[in-house]
């Protein structure tokens, strides 16, 4: 550009400018001053601790946080891990640090770094890790402290019977939350939704917890029934995968989601629950019929869904009462029968015809069912007890846990052994040990019950509360012992003498395979009048008949099914423990999938109950 000479200034100007060359500069290079200990500078996030729950995003009023999917990070809904991390938009962030105060894991903090200058706007949107915005490892500024933690990490205690008042009866142990405890417990929830994804049935736990917190129990029950027709059962005995995934559980006690469900159900009378549960039921009949074999949670869930969708559903059950293992396995002190009955009454009210004492088999063959019904579902569970088959287990006083539990439910008279040993370390083992201990106390006033488990104390398969409560009730739990043989009382005495066990040094090999190693020098004899095996169960599929057994595809001894529970034989589905397991909530989830698939098969399109609502 040309400049007129008039504006070029004096000819000495360049010399003048030269004279400035050696002066102290007025503008100093920017060296930030150290920030205070609690400074709210740029975010840092410990990716190892962060679980990707997104609570930070939810609390941010400025919408400054977005959750970014990061391929390769652990993606495990059951463990409460999502492969995403928060990214901060510093055009929006006001450094209030609520995200830090709410962060359930404590992974997020603000650092003492506060300088960032760049003409590139994109650099103000960052995905912080533990090194900070420029990878400089600035120390933390505002971070989680007990004072500033917005979370309540302690759970509301569940009132329950003490060992003295529960040891000789089958009354339910827990009393349930009152309204205040329930609201306080619900108020701890941060609504992150990790529970929803961890639940095999994807229960809407955040929604019903919020409803409980707002005091709206009807809404809570409605939310519960969207995905689970066994809320009374699951409110008591669910394996609560939701709680394992709960973000609050990363530093504190997870929300008592199971107990909150129990509370919501207890707040409404059965009639009201029924009305809510049947909302959305299709009144027009489809004219199609479905047979379900087995009235456990898998079969009854599918039956309930299908009946609500307008199909005629008949359930055939071999035992005198419906419910499967929920009735004939789980003891009443954990799940009172009248509460199971309440759930089942709702299912019956939906129009499901449950026919008990109707075993499918020689008198009611599969062929007939397949002829008479448009679709058939198998949900016959794992009813037979497994044996260790160590020497002596063929003795008549060696019993299977499931057979004994069944007899107790039926109210059959049992020769209560004065002394008993249970083999097994899972919940079934504890169920039978605690049930028999109750009968022992009732009949003789004393408990002599030993439970031997292969696992060490801190690797027990059973829930911690089972172990603690069993001990309180007088059950002696011996860990790290494997059964060697059942012995007789004497050389010429055929009565049972007890169980010999040997110390188990390890159960699994380096690659995690079942390979127990024993120390033969450490053998113990546990004197007993009865030995009970509670190591596992098997299914009995003999009722299928030879032709159908041949026609079906099998994998690893179980009927092969697709993701929707359909078998390789058209018109036949299978679900629950007999194909997958291992608990009620998985059976419920599988029941839904089968119902959806059968509904489609019967021409119902893709309508699901959730979508229909």
């Amino acid at each position: 550009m040309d400049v007129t000479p008039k504006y070029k200034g004096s000819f000495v100007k360049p010399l003048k400018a030269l004279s400035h060359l050696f002066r102290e500069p007025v503008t100093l290079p920017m060296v930030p001053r150290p920030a205070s200990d609690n400074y709210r500078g740029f975010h840092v996030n410990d990716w190892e601790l962060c679980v990707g729950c997104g609570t930070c995003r939810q609390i941010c009023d400025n919408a400054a946080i977005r959750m970014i999917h990061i391929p390769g990070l652990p993606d495990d809904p059951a463990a409460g891990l999502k492969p995403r991390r928060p990214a901060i938009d510093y055009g929006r962030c006001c450094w209030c640090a609520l995200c830090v105060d709410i962060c359930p894991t404590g992974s997020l903090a603000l650092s003492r770094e506060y300088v960032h200058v760049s003409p590139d706007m994109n650099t103000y949107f960052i995905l912080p890790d533990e090194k900070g915005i420029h990878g400089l490892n600035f120390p933390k500024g505002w971070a989680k402290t007990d004072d500033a933690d917005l979370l309540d990490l302690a759970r509301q205690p569940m009132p329950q019977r003490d060992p003295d008042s529960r040891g000789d009866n089958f009354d339910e142990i827990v009393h349930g939350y009152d309204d205040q405890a329930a609201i306080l417990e619900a108020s701890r929830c941060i609504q992150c939704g990790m529970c929803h994804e961890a639940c095999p049935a994807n229960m809407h736990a955040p929604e019903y917890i919020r409803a409980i917190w707002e005091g709206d129990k009807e809404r809570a029950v409605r939310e519960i029934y969207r995905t689970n027709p066994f809320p009374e059962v699951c409110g008591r005995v669910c394996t609560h995968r939701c709680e394992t995934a709960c973000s609050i559980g990363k530093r504190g006690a997870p929300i008592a989601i199971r107990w909150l469900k129990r509370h919501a159900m207890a707040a409404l009378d059965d009639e009201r629950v029924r009305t809510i549960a049947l909302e959305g039921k299709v009144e027009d009949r489809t004219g199609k019929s479905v047979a379900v074999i087995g009235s456990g949670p898998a079969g009854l869930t599918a039956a309930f869904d299908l009946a609500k969708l307008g199909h005629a559903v008949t359930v055939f059950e071999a035992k005198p009462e419906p419910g499967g293992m929920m009735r004939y396995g789980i003891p009443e002190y954990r799940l009172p029968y009248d509460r199971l009955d309440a759930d089942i009454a709702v299912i019956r009210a939906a129009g499901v015809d449950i026919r008990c004492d109707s075993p499918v088999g020689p008198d009611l063959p599969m062929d007939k069912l397949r002829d008479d019904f448009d679709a058939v579902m198998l949900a016959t569970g794992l009813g037979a007890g497994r044996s260790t088959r160590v020497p002596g287990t063929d003795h008549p006083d060696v019993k299977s846990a499931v057979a004994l539990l069944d007899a107790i439910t039926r109210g059959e008279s049992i020769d209560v052994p004065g002394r008993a040993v249970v083999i097994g370390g899972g919940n079934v083992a504890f169920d039978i040990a605690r049930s028999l201990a109750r009968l022992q106390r009732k009949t003789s006033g004393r408990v002599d019950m030993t439970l031997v488990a292969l696992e060490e104390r801190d690797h027990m398969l059973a829930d911690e509360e089972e172990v603690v409560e069993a001990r309180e009730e007088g059950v002696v739990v011996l860990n790290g012992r494997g059964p060697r043989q059942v012995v007789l009382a004497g050389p010429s005495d055929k009565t049972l003498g007890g169980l010999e066990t040997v110390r188990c040094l390890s159960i699994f090999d380096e690659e995690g395979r079942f390979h127990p190693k024993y120390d033969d020098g450490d053998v113990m004899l546990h004197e007993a009048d009865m030995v009970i095996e509670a190591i596992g169960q098997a299914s009995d599929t003999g009722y299928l008949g030879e032709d159908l057994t041949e026609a079906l595809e099998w994998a690893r001894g179980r009927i092969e099914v697709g993701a929707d529970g359909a078998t390789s034989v058209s018109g036949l589905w299978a679900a629950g423990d007999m194909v997958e397991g291992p608990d009620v909530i998985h059976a419920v989830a599988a029941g839904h999938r089968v119902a959806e698939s059968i509904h489609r098969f019967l021409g119902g399109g893709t309508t699901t109950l959730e979508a229909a609502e």
Partner: protein
Amino acid sequence: MSSQHGEGHVSAKDRLARMKSLEEILNTAMAFEKTAQTFYEQLAGRVRKPLRELVAELAAEEKRHYELFEAARDHPETEAHIRERIAVPVNDHRFSDYVHMPALGDHPDDQAILQYAMGREHAAHEHYADLAESAPEGPLKELFKFLSDEELRHKGDLEKRYYEIVHSGGV
């Protein structure tokens, strides 16, 4: 586990009695694999379909082992050693037990089959490991070593399966 042949108190006569020619050993091992294969194949025809896959798998495994032995026996290098006498493992009797058809009854269930198979794989693993130590360098030594590892791996797989099948149900 290492074998204890020829050590300490074992007399020279005993030691001699515990020596067998490679040919004998090979024949026993092949009989061992063949019996199992035949047993599983016959069983596959008797068990219900849910178990057939397991039994067929077991039969195929034994067949493969038998064929490996056949190939090793016919290998030119083997010819040179076939009459050599080498120490027989101490667990020989247990191994030999499995050369006979097992008595599992007419309708064994999954647990009985797996227990038998695991016991067999265990005996075979130990036996082949010991033979691998005593056998002269060459294809036979390699084969025993390979089979010993195979049997161990397979036993591990069966144990995992056993645990999944037997220790299932309830939570």
